C-alpha cells in the first residue's frame, strides 16, 4: 500500500505565503497609477490632432513669411542691392565653375591618340 508523501515544510510555507501573503493596493490607486504612467510615457499618436497640426504649421509659415517681408521692407536699398548683387555674382561664379568642370571632364574622356599634340602625322 502506497503511503502519502508529506509535503516538505518549505513547500507548505511557500504555498501558504504565495496564496495569502501578497498585498494589493486599492483599486482606485491601481487605476490612477496606470493612467498616470500612460499619460507620462506614452505619447499621443502623431495624427491624433490633424487640424491642430495644420493650424500650427500655418502659424509657423505665416510668421516666417512676415519676418522675411519685414526684413526686406526695413533693410536699406543699398544693402538689399549689394545682397542681390552678391547673390547674382555667386550664381555666375558657381555656373562658370560648373561649366569649366564639365569641360575638363569632357577633355579627359577623349582618347589620347585623337588629340593633335599626340598625333605624329
Amino acid at each position, binding site marked *: 500500500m502506497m503511503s502519502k508523501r508529506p509535503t516538505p515544510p518549505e513547500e507548505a*510555507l511557500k504555498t501558504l505565503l504565495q496564496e495569502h501573503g501578497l498585498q494589493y*493596493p486599492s483599486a482606485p490607486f491601481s487605476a490612477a497609477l*496606470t493612467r498616470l504612467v500612460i499619460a507620462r*510615457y506614452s505619447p499621443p499618436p502623431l495624427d491624433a490632432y490633424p487640424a491642430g497640426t495644420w493650424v500650427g504649421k500655418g502659424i509657423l509659415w505665416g510668421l516666417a513669411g512676415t519676418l522675411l517681408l519685414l526684413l526686406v521692407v526695413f533693410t536699406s536699398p543699398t544693402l538689399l542691392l549689394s545682397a542681390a548683387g552678391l547673390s547674382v555674382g555667386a550664381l555666375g561664379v558657381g555656373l562658370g565653375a560648373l561649366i569649366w568642370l564639365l569641360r575638363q571632364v569632357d577633355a579627359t574622356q577623349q582618347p589620347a591618340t585623337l588629340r593633335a599634340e599626340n598625333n605624329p602625322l
Partner: protein
Amino acid sequence: MGLFHTPSAEDQLLQQAIQGERRALEHLVQTHQAMAYTVALRVVGNQQDAEEVVQDAFLKAFGALAQFQRAAKFSTWLYRIVYNTALTSQRNRPAVTSDLEESLPSAGSAHQEPSGWEELAQADRQKYVALALNRLPADDALVLTLHYLGEKSIAEICTILGKKTSAVKMQLLRGRQQVAQALRQLLPTELRNL
C-alpha cells in the same frame, strides 16, 4: 551561449515600453504593482505611504527605462527602486506608528468576495499569514516576501536590498523559522506538517 541571442519576451516588452507603447506600459504596471506595493508596505508600514512610494518608484523606473542595462531582471531592478524609495520616504517622515495591522486584509476587502464559508475561511487565512509576517522584524519579513512571493533568488535579494549573501541567508532562515512557528499557532490545521 550563442553569439546571437533572440530577445526574450521581457526584452521585447521593455523595448515596446521604451517606445511608449500603451499596452506594454499597462502590462508592466499591472504585473508588478502588487509585489511592489507589498515590498513598500513592508518598509513604510502604512497603506497611504506605500501607495505613494509605489507611484514614485514606477515613475522613476519608467523615466530611466532607456538606461536600464538589463544586467538583472526588470522586476529585480524595479523592486530595488521601490526599496530605496521606501527607505528615503521613511527617513524623510516623522516617526509614525505602523498601521500594518489596520491594513491587514479583512473578510470584506476588495480582493475577496466572500460568498460562502470557504471564502471567509480563505480571507481569515490571508489575515493570519499577514499577521504572522508582521510579527517578524521588518527586514526578515521583507526577505521572506521577496523570496517566496517575488520568487527572487538569494543573489537577487542581495541586489535589491544591497546586503551580503550571508546576511540574507541568515534572515531567510530566521524568518522562515519564526513565521512557521507563528503560523503553527495561528493556523494549526493548515500547517500541521510544518
